[in-house]
């Protein structure tokens, strides 16, 4: 379970990196397309994915960002929380809860950005917090595992026969 916890925590961090990458990839593709005379509006974005005929290939980044953010990341964060109950490491639940809470906030800020663009700026800031916290949650488990290894023989001695 501790390995699962570690993997899931790192996976959240990796997903945040992927989310940042695909978004910048999409925006870079958009500006290149606009440079070549393309015009981006609601009908262009709403219609392109269904037909499979995308105005520029990097539109795919927006699609990936949406699917990842709505389904994959919350799913991993939820799994991490459940795994944390079984990890039996001090603080594992607390840090999994913080990761989960930041994921919830992240999703809300993302959708808030559709209506209130400054929410989008906070979405970017919260991503950094989530990345750091997820990384820390994974790393502290590694550290605690090391401590456990060191203290293991001691614990055995203390066990009454």
């Amino acid at each position, binding site marked *: 379970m501790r390995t699962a916890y570690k993997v899931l925590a790192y996976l959240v961090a990796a997903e945040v990196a992927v989310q940042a990458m695909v978004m910048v990839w999409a925006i870079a593709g958009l500006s290149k397309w606009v440079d070549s005379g393309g015009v981006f509006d609601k009908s262009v974005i709403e219609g392109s994915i269904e037909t499979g005929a995308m*105005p520029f290939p990097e539109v795919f980044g927006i699609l990936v960002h949406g699917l990842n953010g709505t389904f994959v990341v919350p799913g991993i964060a939820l799994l991490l929380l459940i795994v944390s109950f079984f990890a039996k490491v001090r603080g594992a639940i607390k840090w999994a809860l913080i990761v989960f809470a930041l994921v919830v906030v992240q999703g809300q800020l993302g959708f808030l950005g559709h209506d209130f663009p400054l929410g989008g700026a906070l979405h970017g800031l919260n991503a950094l917090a989530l990345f750091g916290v997820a990384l820390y949650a994974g790393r502290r488990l590694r550290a605690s595992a090391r401590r456990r290894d060191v203290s293991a023989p001691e614990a055995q001695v203390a066990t009454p026969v």
Partner: protein
Amino acid sequence: MSLNGGLKIVLPILATVAIMAPLGWMWQTSRVPGTYSVMNMGYPDYGGGHVSDSSSGGEMQGHVHNHHSLPSRMITDLIVNPARPADVRVDLVTRQEMLTVGGRPMPGFTVNGVSPGPEIRARQGQLIEVQLRNESVSDGVTLHWHGIDVPNAMDGVAGVTQDAVPVGGEFTYRFVADQAGSFWYHSHQVSNPQVVGGLLGSLVVTPRSGIAQQVDVSAVAHTYGGLRTINGKAEDLRVPTQPGQRVRVRVTNTDNGPMKVWAGGSYRLLAVDGTEVHRPTEVSGRAVTLTAGARVELEVKVPGDGDAFRVQLTKTTAVIIGPQGADVAAPPQPNAELDLLAYGSPASLGFDPAQPSRRFDYRIDRRPGFVKGRPGMWWSINGHLYPNVPMYVVREGDVVLMHIENHSGEVHPMHLHGHHVVVLARNGVAATGSPWWVDSLNVLTNETYDVALVANNPGVWMDHCHNLKHAAQGMVAHLLYEGFDTPYRIAGPADNQPE
């Protein structure tokens, strides 16, 4: 095992159950049966009007019963007199094939080999008969007559008013073109990919008395794979005219997003969604917003000096009107908007909205949850997710007020089938212009609209978001006339998927 050890196992399991059980319950309740009738969807909303009878125990949350004392009448009866001969007869054949738009090949759909399909033209009062044959659209097709208040059985909604027409199948649509104006037709089976892919066309009904303009031109705007087009071509539409002529420009937005239209000089907005504006005045320096599915008719005058006149459909494409070869620079997009709430002069509505018999809310929000077993951020109607949405129940003759409110973060083009609604107020500000009748209404986030309609077209009618992607995500409710029922079902043997 000690008590402590036992707890160490039980507690994590309990915590897991505490999280998963509500999610599992939400998932379970969001699932829909393999096949169902829209009559069994959601819960009845009588809007404070007459309640037909008990509404308990359907396949889903509620069940709108109509058995009352009388047996319910099937909507399949709601047709025009079969003995009356057609005045305009059209054969339409649908195919699934590659399109070439702006030199780019892309998968799509055609009607009689082209996209958009052929324009149907009729004179007001004529009976239009369309023989639809589906040659190769594998999911099946239907034709919905967007903006024409046809009899319910002719509305062309798969699983609600008919079965999807399979490959090799046929269906005959017959309706009287009572209203003059600009309309369009499109598939209402798997409608998002099919309409986006081009299964659509224009329908124009000219008034009995004819039009006052010398030139009448249709500009159907559609975006194919990111390419904006007019009448299927990714280029400006050139309309040869003589200096000084008056031109009626009919613009149809067939996309999922709103579109701005403006001109290089002054224009009059003659009609909105197939209804004439009362005493339209000259407008300049203002853009008109066409929501998804909406139409406008502009009157412009060709300059007398041999120059051309431009009507911009977004920044990308334009209708260029003038003598052969003449052109003019594209006018910049105005920031100012033509506000239809105060355009034209007031006129009688033909009914009194101050004495409504039903009042409904159509409140749109967005929240996390499950729709059809899938997790996501979904559109809700009055706080409920599909299919547990309201079924608005009316009786023939009712005056109905609907309060539309959007707090979902995105714009929604709201489209009620079979009826036109008149806008009474936006954000609490009363309309002061010409009666503003619409069938497709642009509702921005944090906007409210109060609209009214007369229930004068019995049947079961979709009331949905015409961003067809949103409809496919569950932004679909229905307006039901008490005493009516439909024999058609969503999914089922015909695999009806109206969205």
